[in-house]
């Protein structure tokens, strides 16, 4: 059975987004992927907890797709986590609804890979900044997948962007067709 993939997209100004728009478009074209634009669904930040939890139950792979803002996600994804990943649903003694599902972070960063290294401006790698998400996955009994990271979007040429978007689509396809271990 193909894995059902839910991409939670968090970008507050999609009109101005280049990288995330391209990735989102690539994801949308992959069969079996459901793209869920959080800022579009909840312009008032009023997350519908029940609906979101139902959506999670219907999918096997959850993708957080967003630009890196201040070494983390845009605000709505944090709001989403605060509200949807409830005690008793996602974690806690009875909270096993997400057990066995996978979590993938697919993020874009303006700075180049070098800036996310010990000698660089940001000192640490994106993987390290994503630790809170990794911890979240663990607490929810989810499998943490190696993140998809697109570095240096400020300087990215259209052709390169297209290539990365194709890589992203290929990754989602692989996840979809992956056999449950």
């Amino acid at each position, binding site marked *: 059975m193909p894995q059902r993939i839910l991409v939670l997209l968090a970008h507050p100004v999609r009109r101005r987004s280049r990288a995330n728009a391209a990735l989102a478009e690539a994801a949308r074209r992959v069969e079996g992927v459901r793209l869920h634009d959080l800022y579009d669904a909840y312009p008032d930040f009023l997350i519908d907890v029940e609906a979101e939890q139902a959506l999670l139950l219907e999918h096997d792979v959850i993708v957080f797709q967003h630009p890196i803002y201040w070494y983390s996600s845009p605000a709505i994804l944090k709001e989403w986590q605060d*509200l949807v990943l409830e005690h*008793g649903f996602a974690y806690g003694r009875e909270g096993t609804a997400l057990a066995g599902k996978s979590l993938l972070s697919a993020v874009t960063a303006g700075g180049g890979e070098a800036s996310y290294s010990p000698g660089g401006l940001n000192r640490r790698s994106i993987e390290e900044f994503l630790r809170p998400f990794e911890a979240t996955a663990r607490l929810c009994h989810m499998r943490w997948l190696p993140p998809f990271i697109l570095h240096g979007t400020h300087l990215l040429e259209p052709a390169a962007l297209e290539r990365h978007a194709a890589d992203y689509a290929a990754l989602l396809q692989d996840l979809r067709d992956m056999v449950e271990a």
Partner: protein
Amino acid sequence: MSEGFLAQAFVYLLAAVATVPIAKRLGLGSVLGYLLAGVAIGPFGLNLAGNAGEVMHFAEFGVVMMLFLVGLELRPARLWAMRGPVLGAGGLQVGLTAAAVGGIGLAFGYDWRMALAAGLILAMSSTAIALQILAERGLQKTGGGETTFAVLLFQDVAVIPILTVLPLLALAPATGGGAHDEGWIATLPPWGQAIAVLGAVAAVVVGGRLLTRPAFRIIAETKLREIFTASALLLVVGIALLMEAVGLSPALGAFLGGVVLAESEFRHELEGDIEPFKGLLLGLFFLSVGAGIDFAQVAAAPFTVAGLVLLLVLVKAAVLAGLGLATRRPRTEVLLTALLLSQGGEFAFVLLAFATQNGVLPVAEASLLVSVVALSMLVTPLLMMTYGRLADRLADADLPPEPDAIEPQGSVVIAGFGRFGQIIGRLLMAQGHTVTVLDHDMETIETLRSFGFRVFYGDASRLDLLQAAGAAEAALVVVATDAPETTLSIIGTVRRHFPQAEILARAADRNHAYAVIEAGAHGMVRETFGSALELGVEALRRLGLPAYEAERAGRLFRRHDLRTLHRLGALRGDDGRYRLAVREASERLSAVLERDKARGRIIHSEGWDTTSLVEEVRRNAALKQAEG
């Protein structure tokens, strides 16, 4: 007398109603339908038409109205931008056609003066037919449509010098009372006539600028529709009379008046008021042309008449086609202009009568030409039936096709600009959208106009007004009127006639909201709901709820309420089911509240609830203590 009038009106109306829809259904277009209906009731058909000549004279006023409406569509700046085509294409068309027709006349052995007079007269085309066909096919704003109009405009102006020149071409002394009916103006010396003509034009321009707006404003404030209609008619009739008095073409004067008023906020309302009169009168005009065709003369010399009609159409079309190709216009445009302007015009009837009076043309020749012109009018709609196919073939050959010149239009129409619509309009304008506003409150309109809004006066439930405001091109129509019934009727009209536009509507209350959804609105907001909710949130805060929680409580309340509303709206159709659904919904509401309670949550504090987490941690700690 009045019985005779009614009987005649009955005959004409019946002929139109019986024939035109059939012609339209058969793809012949309305103009041909009217002309054929005219033939049917004419002396050579059922002979019911009475004095068709008199009717035609009256119906020519339809052409005046048509040009007034055309003028309303043309802002002065656009008219100025058209000066090239008007003088170039128009001037060349009249000059070359007159020369060609005159040359043919000479070749047939006529005196040069007669040949020239006939040439000038036959160079005129029919504004009524060409513009009516353009409008019916929606081709006014295409390149070909604009060239057609430019040529017609030049012809209208050219009538004046032609009227002046014709008496000089007289072969025999004038038979009538000398010059044509110029009234008192003919008694003035030439410089006095010039001053009178200039004065009349100035009166239309200055009067239109300065006097009509305050006058219409006062009339609009009476809120008497028929008085507004009456004053619109009065304006057009007045301009026509003034122009006639100084010997100018009434149609030209009306056109000028229209241009002057094109930037007024009453433009759309005037359009809506004059339009039906124009339509009826033009129809009547076509009927009378059909009825006036002298088939006895045609029967006497069928080949001569047919040959002349053919020759006239060919020469006129050839001149226009040659002009168009020489200036490298796209070939589909050239085809359109050539076909549309290939007939003789209504001015020809006037000029032919004038020419016989002045002894320029003998009666026999003139009446032959009247038949030729009338029949050539019949040919145009027939030719236009081939236009679509020919144009397609040409467009395929022409690469790349030139895009149609379409005036940029506002993409949002707001109907109703009171306290409600204003806020919507301000928000949209602040985001850089072009907004066309329809409202019928003079005070609002004046204030808004002084701030540069595009506001128009009128009853937004009228189809013609919506059309004039650009609803056909609008992506969105916002219905913000305060009368619930009007709102529903506007939604219905927009849904039926402008299906491309999305509709957002202001609903009065819950029941009206259902009706608005049923009428076809894509979205709606209840006018008091949002503000009441805000006040409710404020009340919660005063009662001690922290600001953010109060805000969330309000939003959650709104979400639930809207969901119920949409579900009920979809279920309303049949009464029994509706009531069932209401009960079901209220059960659902209580069920939802019940569930919230069971989870240890009331609606305003949904989210960030740590109760169960704290309990679990305490339990674990207690267990550990027990173990340890």
